[in-house]
């Protein structure tokens, strides 16, 4: 690992100022991705500004049923928070199905949104990677890409977005609160993640030095019946091959409202709007669920090693919908 300077921030403003005024520096939160990538020589800041002591750890219950979650609340704390479990079970499930108990104690909510892709070519400084070195090419296109994305890809990058949490958040229309030298602003979470397009190195609409301060989850009564279903190569401590976040509001068996998102198959946490559009007003059942899943995966671009993901994602989406419709969620 390269040598680094270390600064401990005591308040949000000075942390933001420190990183803004020194482009070679980065924020340090839980460090579970960042320290790993420092050691691999993928990230090369000359200074870390440690934000772990900033007062951004609270989980505030809004009277209307929403939540304001501090950016430095840890994944484990949010997963077990009674209001999260009761109001947004898919959020708690997504957190608990991610990483391991140790990593969930370390990783922060804001850091989770900022985590980097797990593409082996991104993590290897010897390989061509447009995300790491713009214009250098993409080794995954003709390389080992079994885990790579089939939705939202470009000819420059097919890395899968790795977060489970973010999939639940895009289904819930969460809002990311950030603060920079020009003040605070709010970004809808779906806009917080950029498609790779021609600029895969640009992952978020943040200016240098802007810091996530909180994640707002707006009230959504239907989310009390919701589910995060994750399919992977092993039962625990593994990234998703396909995952689905689903919430349904039924009236006499007819779908009045639906929220769907996919993980493990796309270059960003994937709000499944095509599927939602198919389902609105339809009678809940496998026929409609299958039509919706087929519509969502229609634009998929597969490659030899990840072609199985289109069918896997369809089945994952159908099973998530069926489970929520019949049991209301809980554990799948």
């Amino acid at each position, binding site marked *: *690992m*390269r*040598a*680094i*300077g*270390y*600064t*401990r*921030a*005591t*308040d949000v*403003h*000075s*942390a933001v*100022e*420190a990183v803004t005024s020194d482009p070679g520096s980065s924020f*340090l939160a839980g*460090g*579970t991705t960042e*320290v*790993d990538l*420092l*050691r*691999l020589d993928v990230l090369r800041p*000359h*200074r*870390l*500004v*440690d934000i*772990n002591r900033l007062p951004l750890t609270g989980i505030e219950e809004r009277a209307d049923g929403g939540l304001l979650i501090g950016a430095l609340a840890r994944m*484990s704390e949010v997963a077990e928070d009674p209001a999260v479990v009761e109001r947004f079970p898919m959020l708690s499930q997504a957190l608990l199905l991610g*990483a*391991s*108990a*140790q*990593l969930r*104690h*370390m990783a922060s909510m804001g850091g989770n949104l900022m985590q980097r892709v797990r593409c082996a070519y991104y993590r290897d400084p010897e390989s061509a990677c447009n995300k790491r070195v713009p214009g250098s090419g993409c080794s995954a296109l003709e390389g080992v890409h079994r885990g790579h994305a089939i939705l939202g890809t470009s000819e420059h990058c097919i890395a899968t977005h790795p977060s489970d949490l973010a999939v639940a958040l895009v289904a819930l229309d969460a809002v990311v609160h950030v603060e920079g030298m020009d003040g605070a602003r709010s970004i809808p979470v779906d806009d917080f993640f950029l498609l790779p397009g021609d600029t895969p190195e640009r992952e978020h609409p943040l200016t240098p030095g802007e810091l996530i301060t909180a994640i707002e989850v707006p009230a959504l009564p239907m989310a009390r019946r919701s589910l995060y279903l994750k399919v992977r190569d092993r*039962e*625990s*401590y593994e990234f998703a091959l396909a995952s689905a976040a689903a919430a349904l509001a039924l009236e006499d068996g007819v779908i009045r409202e639906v929220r769907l998102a996919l993980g493990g198959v796309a270059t960003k946490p994937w709000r499944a709007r095509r599927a939602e559009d198919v389902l609105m007003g339809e009678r809940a059942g496998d026929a409609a669920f299958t039509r919706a899943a087929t519509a969502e995966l229609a634009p998929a671009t597969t490659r030899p090693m990840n072609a199985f993901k289109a069918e896997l994602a369809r089945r994952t989406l159908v099973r998530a919908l069926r489970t929520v419709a019949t049991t209301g969620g809980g554990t799948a």
Partner: protein
Amino acid sequence: MADKGAPIPVTQPAILETRGPGSVKVDLDVNGVSRVVHLEPRVSLLDALREQMALTGSKKGCDQGTCGACTVWVDGRRVLSCLTLAISCEGREVTTIEGLAEGDELHPMQRAFLEHDAFQCGYCTPGQIMSAVALLNEGHAGTDGEIAEWMSGNICRCAAYPLIRSAIREVRDRKTGQ
């Protein structure tokens, strides 16, 4: 209150001190003992424990947050010391496997691992035990399935998992008086 000279500009951000990248003095609390070490900010908690404090119980397996052999507690929570910077632990309480026994009296989980032969090569064992004790405190050891899920961050290449679960069950049941 008396006005002593110029008012403190409260909206002005604090001037933050930068330490390193060379060696700096770091104060750590490890197993209840205050220690002063000199290390570069890039040094992991795991390397600081092993190389500077001769606490070699915490093991370096993958050094990338995958295997759990380096599991310690920071402020009572199990974390991975390989992905934690030592300097970031100032003011925190660090507990390692060396801090688990009461003098010569092994922690019940350490005894249970011995009694159940819950290891083969033993390399992952300190991390398994630190994780297992934390698991019981976290309250997620109700069933074998739950134990397996909440211990999944500790890999055992000898596959001693069934006996690790036996040891955890025994300490769990003794605790709850079953």
